[in-house]
């Protein structure tokens, strides 16, 4: 771990009683859902993490609790540090408080989480899908969403597949 990062990690650990992972000099801190906005505000105001570099999630289906990890990749320009916060979320009705009041970049990134993973963002100012069309069903980056290859038609199943093909039938 970077020497400059140690006091910050310690302070977070004392305040939020979190667990910590380290891999290839990167520090991941696990934070509970209800504390994440508080932790982000603290990091931005007291420890100069000005930039929320990335905000994404990872799906561990079929595991259910936690099913998702939401990943906040923070970056401090004045101290030249990076830090990752991870929020585990349950698979049943996942909810996350919005971070748009701390970092406005979270606005679009959270819309992407909503769109791609179906994570509900509480208090988001503009909760619409961002990349997929409005009328899409399902959330593409979930592991139980199929990649979408078309099933090949053979003589034995041509009619069966034809039934659910999306073109107009007479």
């Amino acid at each position, binding site marked *: 771990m970077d020497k400059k990062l140690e006091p910050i990690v310690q302070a977070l650990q004392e305040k939020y009683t979190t667990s910590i992972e380290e891999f290839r000099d990167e520090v991941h801190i696990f934070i509970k859902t209800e504390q994440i906005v508080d932790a982000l505000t603290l990091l931005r105001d007291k420890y100069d993490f000005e930039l929320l570099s990335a905000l994404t999630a990872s*799906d561990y289906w079929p595991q259910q609790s936690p099913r998702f990890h939401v990943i906040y*990749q923070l970056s401090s*320009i004045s101290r030249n540090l990076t830090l990752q916060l991870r929020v585990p979320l349950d698979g049943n009705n996942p909810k996350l408080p919005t971070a748009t009041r701390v970092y*406005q*970049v979270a606005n679009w990134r959270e819309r992407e989480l909503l769109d791609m993973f179906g994570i509900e963002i509480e208090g988001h100012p503009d909760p619409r899908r*961002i990349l997929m069309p409005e009328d899409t069903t399902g959330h593409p980056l979930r592991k139980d969403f199929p990649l979408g290859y078309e099933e090949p038609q053979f003589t034995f199943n041509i009619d069966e597949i034809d039934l659910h093909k999306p073109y107009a039938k007479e």
Partner: protein
Amino acid sequence: MAQLEEVNVDQYKHLVSERALTGETMLLNMGPQHPSTHGVLRLLLELDGETVLNCIPDIGYLHTGIEKNMEAKTYLKAEVMSDRLDYMNTMGNNLAYVLAVEKLVELDVPPRAQAIRVILTELQRIASHLVFLGAFGLDLAAMSVFLYCFREREAILDIAELCSGQRMMTTYFRPGGLWRDVPVEFETAVRNFLKMFPKRVDEYETLLTKNPILLDRTVGIGKLDIATALQHGATGPMLRASGLNWDLRKARPYSGYEQYDFNVPTRTEGDTFARYIVRIEEFRESMKIVEQALNKLPMGPVNSDNRKFVPPPRSELGVSMEALIHHFKLWTEGFPAPKASVYSAVESPRGELGVYLEGDGGPKPQRIHWRTPSFDNLSVIEKMVRGHLVADLVAILASIDIVLGDIDR
């Protein structure tokens, strides 16, 4: 089947002003098919006369599900998708991806491969900025600059073709090194380019930098201060034009950038003209890096000799049993990566290009996320265009230098 619904104001009423609901101001669609939206970007504008009150970008028309597709491929095969993200910066995307893979599996890269990576990425940065400059000129009605820029860009794409066999979708950098060494003509080709290009940059400057029409349309237009830029995650030339000296090549050097001597051009105005000047200066800095890297290009292998991750050379397959086994395993199954995650970021021509890569213990990634700079850079546009004219919006959009493949992924 979903019913097609007519778009109405109700859907956007939390984003536009109240005057739009009474019909006092006008809602106007710009794009997705519009020449100055640089691809398929739709902007919903709320206009009072010709003044922009609100701008609501609508993205996703080019969404190709690259992240999902990469999850279904082995680490080697997934790299092909990375070229298709930001198609102006293919080598840079390859570099971001291979650095993440190398960090995840702890793979060393020989110095020659690192230097060649730097040369090609910097040339690609010049090519990307040339497209920016051409399109910027075109949007401000300076047609000839576009043609000149594409002439020079062709010389760079020829160098890419010389190395990899492809002009754009190169996939030349591989985990552990390069696909193969550069051909003997490489050095002459790059030197010829370095000899020709500085004069050409001066030519662009004589055409644009003091051009009163360009100055009228760019100076003081679309101002962005550092605090807003950081809040919206804007990086790269956008941030540097606002006055913050932040370049990942200097701050967190990768691939041997610490050996080269170059400056990070910054401006303090934060307007459209500053963003243009920063990129012009970056032409010169990139040329400095390429020249230094070429002058001390070390000899030696271009691939790591760790056969668990890098395929053996063809010549060994006939004589070595182990080489044959490694070749077979790598091309059928791929190599496994640990069940952990890394985040690695590089400085792309547009800003911080980050890759979040998570392995699941097997040969395919559990999750790969691309933190693409254009996505965040575009989100700041609503702040920049407020109060400007529609014609200024075109200049501002051009100065952000968006690539829709980079935004929609």
